[in-house]
């Protein structure tokens, strides 16, 4: 029995529909070729020429392979790790053979050499991608994730408790509901940050959160929700939206003297999920209410851990409104 809690690293076939994976494979192969050129050509001036010569031969095969793998990504995802790797090597070999044939340099000896080189290169790239995944795997990133996990502001907790106390005598039912909302919010906050959750659950969570803020701030907070096109079955890391909404209210509504309009829009565009959270832009007072960018960087990093380079998080100020936009791949949650 293991004495320490161990998380077996889930091995999954590299996802070639992910831009990050494809880019890494592309760079790795070209670097490899450059090293080979450096090794074989003692003269610096000839190195580049040698590299270009070699590139002309392997580049078509490489690009064809990546294209095929991109197309095959949905099937590859369903395979086990080793059978997936075998299939990837097979695809690369097929592409290498085909391009060799098309380029008209078809001799049996040449072909064998090409295939051995292609197989070895593919194996190297796969090994590199495996190492990379491990380095960023949820198990190893756990500590980092927990440190990154959104923490609710104490300011919010104490003010909410105070608001509930004020309700207990005048409106006990609403006080009960608010405590239930608070409990649910904290259950989510204390849950495992490594999990992917359904968008529907995350939406329910931010609606509860908004209800508590509404109680505190009354008419100063005017929420609008545009969720009709939201893909409720999409998977996303837990607690990505709540800190953003918390920021919107903390920085955009609380410091203002008037009514603060906050908009949440979630929609699916093709195979992307797009989130927009918008609030009034308040000039940050000197020193006070800092730390917004830390929260944004934190969420961006968490998105990266799950979606690699396929996730985007951008913030901007436009016509007096502060906007945060998230763009992540649409994946159905299991």
């Amino acid at each position, binding site marked *: 029995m293991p004495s320490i809690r161990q998380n077996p690293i889930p091995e999954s076939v590299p996802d070639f529909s992910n831009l990050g994976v494809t880019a890494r494979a592309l760079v790795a192969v070209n670097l490899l070729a450059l090293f080979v050129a450096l090794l074989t050509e003692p003269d610096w001036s000839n190195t580049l020429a040698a590299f270009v010569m070699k590139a002309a031969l392997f580049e078509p095969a490489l690009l064809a392979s990546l294209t095929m793998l991109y197309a095959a990504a949905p099937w590859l995802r369903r395979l086990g790790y080793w059978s997936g790797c075998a299939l990837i090597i097979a695809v690369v070999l097929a592409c290498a053979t085909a391009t060799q044939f098309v380029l008209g340099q078809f001799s049996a000896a040449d072909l064998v050499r090409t295939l051995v080189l292609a197989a070895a290169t593919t194996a190297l790239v796969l090994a590199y991608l495996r190492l990379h995944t491990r380095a960023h795997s949820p198990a190893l990133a756990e500590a980092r994730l927990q440190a990154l996990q959104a923490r609710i502001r104490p300011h919010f907790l104490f003010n909410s408790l105070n*608001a509930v106390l*004020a309700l207990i005598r005048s409106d006990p039912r609403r006080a009960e509901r608010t405590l239930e909302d608070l409990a649910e919010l904290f259950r989510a906050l204390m849950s495992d940050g490594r999990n992917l959750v359904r968008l529907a659950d995350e939406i329910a969570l931010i609606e509860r959160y908004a209800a508590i803020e509404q109680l505190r701030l009354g008419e100063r907070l005017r929420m609008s929700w545009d969720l009709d096109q939201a893909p409720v079955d999409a998977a996303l890391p837990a607690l990505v939206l709540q800190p953003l909404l918390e920021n919107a209210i903390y920085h955009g509504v609380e*410091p203002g003297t008037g009514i603060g309009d906050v908009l949440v829009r979630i929609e699916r565009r093709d195979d992307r999920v797009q989130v927009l959270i918008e609030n009034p832009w308040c000039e940050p*007072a000197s020193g006070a209410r800092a730390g917004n960018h830390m929260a944004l960087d934190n969420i961006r990093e968490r998105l990266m851990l799950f979606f690699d380079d396929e996730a985007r998080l951008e913030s901007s100020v436009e016509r007096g409104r502060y906007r945060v936009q998230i763009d992540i791949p649409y994946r159905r949650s299991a």
Partner: protein
Amino acid sequence: MSGELRIYIADDEAPARARLKELLSDIRDELATTVVGESASGLEVIERLPGSAAQVLLLDIQMPGIGGIELARHLCALEDAPAVIFVTAHDRHAVEAFELNALDYLMKPVRAERLAAALKKSLASGPAPRERLERAAGGGAREFFSVAERNRIVLVPVSEVLFLKAELKYVTLRTKAGEHLIEEPLVSIEREFAARFVRVHRNCLVARAAIRGFERVAGGSDEEPHWEVVLEGVAERLPVSRRQWPTLKGVLPESPG
């Protein structure tokens, strides 16, 4: 005065104000109070508190418009300034400052016993001296100047002030809209707002942002030639003293050499 302690409540959250009122009625047997006013914003407190005859102000420090500590500093100018008890949900820096400077404060959620104790204490000690509030502000610059007019306070946003001119006992604040008199030494203003105002003359500070340029004025028969500041928004020009000119030259990138 009758036995009831007159209290003013300032908090931007309605439930928080309701809670304080509940607690005040809970401690009625121990300490009789009456709420003479409540506000959801600091600027409203400045406007309404002076007429309310409040003896104690329960003041949330995180309110829109103006910070709690700065608000308390301006209230000091009132003839019958109330004692202030700060209320905060969670602000470690503020709490540290309160502790260091012996200012009364309560943490949300507030307990009835603590509220009663704080009210009694503040009644005994009266309003906190301005210096302690200034120290609690940690040397941070204010966002408003306050002008005390009889028993009334007018706030002038620091950002609207174009220049300040010392005349005898007073300093005149000049904004686009008009003029105000304040009783503060120019030297301390210069120190507090070093980033915003620059000295052009022994008796005059000018907002850096308002400087449009400098103009050379040929001296008359009994006058030496000198420089003048041309300001954004007002026609008035201000003489630059010979002593200040060398430091002023660098204020504008396009200023004459």
